[in-house]
């Protein structure tokens, strides 16, 4: 029997961590939204000088919590694998994509933390670390796409299973979220407007859709786990 209890705990763990990550991104690192890409090197260095402690504290907390994609991906793997026949190839792809994505969630706080570590250095050096952090955050969607395509495929091709964690609408929702994520990489081309790294279509829309997708997935899996737990002998 699958350990539904452990899976439930792991999902809550992931949900709690994404919440902590998001809150420290906004309140400690002050990166929601990212500052304008037109800021001069001096202005960027001044930001890190003025906020050195809280950016570093934010980096600490984000580094702890940034692995929130790992527990979620593992439980999703288990839940997807029970719907696949033979080698659960889509489940494995999902797990690989989700775990790799974790790397791109820890890198931006790491880079911001480095920028704030010695803000007295020449401003241009701080600027490059700041830019690296912001572009890493906004332009790295490739692994999500693998994770999302895999989830969409299994959601839409599963044989009907009353205890499936993936309702068909979740498959369509995931396709939509994957399409909306594609705009992120465009941030390399613009410094202002809706496609800049702090713009509507590169920052606000992918981040809110990602948040909504993550929680929707977490809660559909939790609901399914509750059903599955009812099946097990006490």
């Amino acid at each position: 029997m699958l350990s539904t209890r452990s899976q439930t705990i792991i999902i809550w763990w992931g949900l709690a961590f994404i919440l902590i990550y998001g809150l420290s991104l906004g309140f400690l690192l002050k990166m929601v939204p990212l500052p304008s890409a037109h800021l001069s090197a001096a202005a960027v260095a001044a930001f890190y000088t003025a906020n050195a402690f809280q950016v570093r504290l934010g980096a600490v907390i984000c580094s702890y919590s940034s692995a929130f994609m790992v527990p979620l991906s593992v439980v999703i793997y288990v839940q997807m694998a029970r719907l696949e026949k033979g080698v659960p190839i889509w489940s494995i792809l999902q797990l690989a994509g989700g775990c790799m994505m974790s790397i791109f969630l820890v890198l931006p706080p790491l880079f911001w933390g480095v920028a704030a570590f010695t803000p007295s250095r020449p401003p241009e050096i701080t600027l490059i670390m700041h830019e690296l952090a912001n572009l890493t955050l906004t332009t790295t969607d490739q692994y999500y796409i693998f994770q999302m395509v895999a989830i969409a495929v299994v959601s839409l091709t599963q044989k009907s299973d009353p205890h499936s964690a993936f309702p068909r609408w979740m498959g369509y929702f995931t396709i939509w979220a994957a399409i909306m994520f594609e705009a992120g990489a465009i941030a390399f081309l613009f410094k202002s407007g809706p496609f800049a790294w702090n713009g509507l279509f590169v920052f606000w829309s992918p981040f809110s859709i990602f948040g909504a997708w993550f929680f929707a997935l977490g809660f559909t899996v939790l609901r399914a786990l509750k059903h599955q737990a009812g099946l097990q002998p006490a």
Partner: protein
Amino acid sequence: MQIKAVRSTPHLPGEEGLWVLILGDMMVFSLFFLTFTYYRGQEVALFAQSQKALSQYCGIINTVLLLTSSWFVANALNAARAGAGRRAQRLFSLAGLCGLGFVVVKVIEYSGKIDAGITLTTNDFFMFYFMFTGIHLVHVLIGLAVLSYAYHRAGREVLRPGDLSALECCAIFWHLVDFLWIVLFAIFYLMK
């Protein structure tokens, strides 16, 4: 006869879940249009000037192509419902051809712009033009894959309600692609 049983109840075309994708997409495109209108309000003269560089002919040809393809798709669905799988297949491939035509015209249009030195970074009008029509073009390409799936699915010996529902989903997606283009066409090529 099975088909009639399905159609006699109030009927949402396709399946419920698909509408999450359709409405989600329409929401995002509405956001595109609002953003475009907002930025246009800031630089009316520049947007009007830039609009003149667009080829109205390409826009009209593409609009006609997509409308025609939607008509083919609608007829294909009717053919499938009547059990004429072969005819449905023919109509789906005609729709796909129109879609391919759209892609060809779009590529010619893009390369003409790029040859004339107009790119994504020329000004705000062309940023929106390339981005929004580009994202739409991705939808067209996905739509072409969806149409070839519909072609394949309509080729089954006997079409069951499940097949019809899948074909409806394909048709809905293609109509969405068409609908989004009509709005894009209006704001980029026609809005005065």
